[in-house]
């Protein structure tokens, strides 16, 4: 169980990933994406990401437009790279190691299980299904249900 995370982190992450905040909250409850990302990229970078996002939204941009603005390397390359790393982290559970920043790693099995990539393909991680016996005889839920 993880501590409360800032709403802006979830709003930003939702805009970057295309998944709803509710889905991200469920993932965050099991795997602390917020704290691990902060540990890997620093509190300053994370605060800057959230502030840039909030500023862009405050100027009248939609969350998607604000996310696109952050991902524009011509604006701030460092910030854009951090935003891309956050997308990868949410989708794959993979992030640079604090011990060796040149190495990518998955902090725990919970990050692997909660990675959004499984939901994006309407599936589940190997050996970690929440489905009941015989689920394979019925079609998966609609993609919109996974978002």
């Amino acid at each position, binding site marked *: *169980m993880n501590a409360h995370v800032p709403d802006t982190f979830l709003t930003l992450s939702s805009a970057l990933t295309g998944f709803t905040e509710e889905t991200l909250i*469920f993932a965050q*409850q099991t795997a602390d994406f917020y704290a691990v990302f902060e540990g890997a990229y620093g509190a300053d970078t994370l605060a800057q990401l959230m502030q840039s996002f909030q500023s862009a939204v405050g100027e009248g941009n939609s969350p998607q437009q604000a996310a696109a603005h952050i991902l524009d390397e011509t604006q701030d390359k460092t910030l854009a790279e951090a935003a891309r790393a956050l997308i990868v982290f949410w989708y794959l559970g993979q992030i640079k190691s604090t011990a060796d920043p040149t190495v990518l790693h998955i902090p*725990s099995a*919970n990050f692997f*299980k909660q990675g959004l990539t499984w939901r994006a393909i309407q599936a589940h991680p190997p050996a970690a299904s929440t489905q*009941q016996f015989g*689920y394979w005889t019925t079609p998966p*839920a609609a993609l919109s*249900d996974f978002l």
Partner: protein
Amino acid sequence: MSISRVARSGATIGFCAAVTLGLSGRDGLAQTNDVSLAPDMPADVIAGNPIGNYEDYNIYSWLSFVALNWPVGENGQPDVNSIIGQNGDNSTVWETWMEDYQILVEDGEVPPTWQAPRAVPPVCGNTKAQSGPSRTIRHVSSKTGAVVSLTNQADAGPLIDQNGNYVRYEILFNEIMYNYIVQNKLYTLAGLSDISEINFPAGASPFGNEGATEVKASWKILGKGDDPSRFHVATSYVYDQAENTCASEMLGLVGFHIATKTNSAPQWIWSTFEHIDNAPDKGNLNTNKHYSFYSSGCLDNGSTCKANQLPEMPWNPTQSGQTPVQVVREAQINGTTTRINAHFQGALKAVNPHSVWGNYILVGTQYPQKPSDPTDPQGRPFPPYLANTTMETFLQGEVPTSSSSCIGCHSGATASNSGKPTDFTFILSRVTAKD
């Protein structure tokens, strides 16, 4: 704090009203500060936001614990003229319920009627009773291949207390669950095959006025170093089916699971309680307090004594030199839960400072946050993991699919003769009678 969102069934004693904590109650209720102690089971939790409110679920758990442990009157109903713990300890409502082994009959047999006296094994008749044992705890289940037996934990081995004795387990269920099983003949393989879907009542139904409820209790033999006045106690026959021996023992309740199916929670609401003397938190091991399942001196010995490790097996309580299980709580109890524990423990101690019920704590409540999520039949349980140190000792932690999750584990329960889901109970996974 308010429980106005917790609807009460009133089915048990004909009381039907939403009770707000701290407001005036009725005769038979103990009012202390802002907590009401009442003998009726809460019916459900009405989610206060899209994914529920953990505080509400923890209050629901405590209300259930109080109701189930209310002094029992006639016919297994709560005695509304008594208050829980007014005499320190009391016999309880749930202890009159049916046990799993009573429904797991042999081929051609039918389960006994509701609350029929439990059959005492013949060998126990030769035992000199201490003061008229009220229960019979069986050492070995005759049903093999079970997820849990009466000394083994779910998907794991036995727990051995600091006196070297096995912890014993019981599984019981309420009359609604009993009626559903019996009327659908789910105690037979034929009945399990005939029913199209096993779907226990979640509220008022032809089977009764409440939802199905199942409880699991863990007991230890009270012995050296234990203070019986701190425990809910049952004098019991402890029957070893394999050896055909029987002893009369004083048992203390050390763990208690409650699982109730409600309209808002088709994946059931799972509450788990423990005695406060069970084991220390992982971050607080330097203590001289007496624990039932932990000795600081043992862990000081190094590699021969590790926390939460299975004991030597086969365990022989009569053999000296063996190391009991050293239990440590891996995850600290959530702050919200701790606060609600203090409220209810205070209310129970206000009734009687020596109430044994004030010596129990809620470890947590697991509930489905999104019960009808088409992508997850488990309903996105929260918290993701939950373990009782006496019942999931060896499955504590946060590792997907192997660490303890009530809903995660029980969602895989299937009938003993097919892959048909049994609606979160493993009792029907042990049926062997043909018809």
